[in-house]
């Protein structure tokens, strides 16, 4: 039988957790809008740039670890202006969100439908699908939740007319130079009609405190609940 003080402490913990769920969902939603609207400074403000190991990895464009690397990648990835006819619109859905027992970190996974329009020379923009999965670690910095480690796993990126089976030409980045701070991509295995897909990223499981070993959860294909 819990004492009155234990009950109050339990309520405090549950309220904290409930608040964290809502704040993290809003954080992710705001970050996605900022990314889609090409608001680079806003995107960076949602990241835990105070943390030396803040990291971002998108598809096969390399891993960027640390505030300077992340800023360099943002300069490269997010243009200052949206050009006429260009569209990037990535959504988040199907959340799996685990708040740590100590309520200081969280892990999340979202399925991300997306549509876009890519500019072409001497032609109308190309309508495309771009779908992926976002696996994210969050950290409570002061009283604010921030994105700590973010990894976008591409599911498919294709011409709208041809579809994902016939067109896999857009799934890998162009063979162009990347920012100097890029580290090798850790995982990139989008849809092809010739392979069986791995169930990566894995799903986040309930946990109490973020340990060093937790850093690899996204790359695990662990079906155990």
């Amino acid at each position, binding site marked *: 039988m819990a004492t*009155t003080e234990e*009950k*109050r402490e*339990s*309520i*405090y913990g*549950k*309220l*904290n*957790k*409930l*608040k964290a*769920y809502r704040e993290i969902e809003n954080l992710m939603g705001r970050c996605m809008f900022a990314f889609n609207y090409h608001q680079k400074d806003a995107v960076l403000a949602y990241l835990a740039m105070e943390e030396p190991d803040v990291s971002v990895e998108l598809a096969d464009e390399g891993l960027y670890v640390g505030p300077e690397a992340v800023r360099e990648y943002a300069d490269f990835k997010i243009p200052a202006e949206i050009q006429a006819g260009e569209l990037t619109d990535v*959504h988040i*859905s*199907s*959340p*799996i*969100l*685990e708040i740590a027992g100590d309520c200081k970190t969280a892990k999340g*996974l979202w*399925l*991300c*439908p997306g549509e876009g329009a890519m500019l072409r020379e001497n032609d109308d923009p190309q309508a495309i*699908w771009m*779908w992926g999965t976002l696996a994210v670690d969050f950290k409570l910095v002061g*009283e604010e939740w921030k994105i700590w480690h973010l990894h976008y796993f591409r*599911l*498919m990126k294709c011409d709208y007319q041809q*579809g*994902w*089976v*016939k067109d896999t030409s857009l799934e890998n980045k162009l063979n162009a130079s990347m920012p100097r701070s890029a580290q090798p991509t850790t995982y990139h295995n989008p*849809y*092809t*009609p*010739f*392979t*069986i*897909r791995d*169930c990566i990223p894995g*799903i986040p499981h309930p946990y109490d405190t973020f340990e060093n070993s937790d850093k690899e959860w996204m790359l695990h294909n662990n*079906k155990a*609940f």
Partner: protein
Amino acid sequence: MDYLREEIAAIPEEELDSFELELDRLLGAYDCLNMIGIGTWYHDDQHPGELQKNYDAAKPGEERPAFIRTPDKVVIDSLEGNTLMQPRHTPVIQVSEDGTKARALTIGFGYEALAKFRETPMAIYSVGIVPGEFVKEDGEWRTVSGGWQRVIKADMEKSWIYDMQHTNTRPPLTPEEDANFLGRYAYKKDRARKPLPAPPEPDTFKKYPDLGDDSWKYKYAPEEKK
């Protein structure tokens, strides 16, 4: 968050239990969302039985409750190029007043690639309505039943006006069999849509207290319940 401690300290002792129960119900909705997300992710991984195994693992040696349904007819072949990605949105989640049961309805909107014999897969747009029931046992939420009611499943190049793919089974379903299975309420250009399934209402567990009683889905068309 220290202001919260002050607020909590002001809650009369006799109201603490009901306050905590309300919190558990709100947190339970997030747990159910997680279960919905997990189900979606495993479905694409071609292992829909994992959810049932999850229940079995938690209750070793106990007989699986009858209300857990196994998708025994559906074939999701582990073939090169097959995929099924149906992100879930528009969630309606209703947790029971005692915080031990929940019902949900979501829409799954996505794409598929379907091969049956290692041929080049067909690219498919698919949308379905997904009911679910959940139970909290030993402090943990679990999925106890799911489902899938097709709205569309169409060859990408033809659209849902002109194409409706059947659920993949072996042997293949006849049109009549499909119309009595997951395609029962699928879109057809020559018929009006039925309002099925209904989302769970706030009083769903007062009217239909038992998990496994799917009458709640037929609220707007009870004559359709078999």
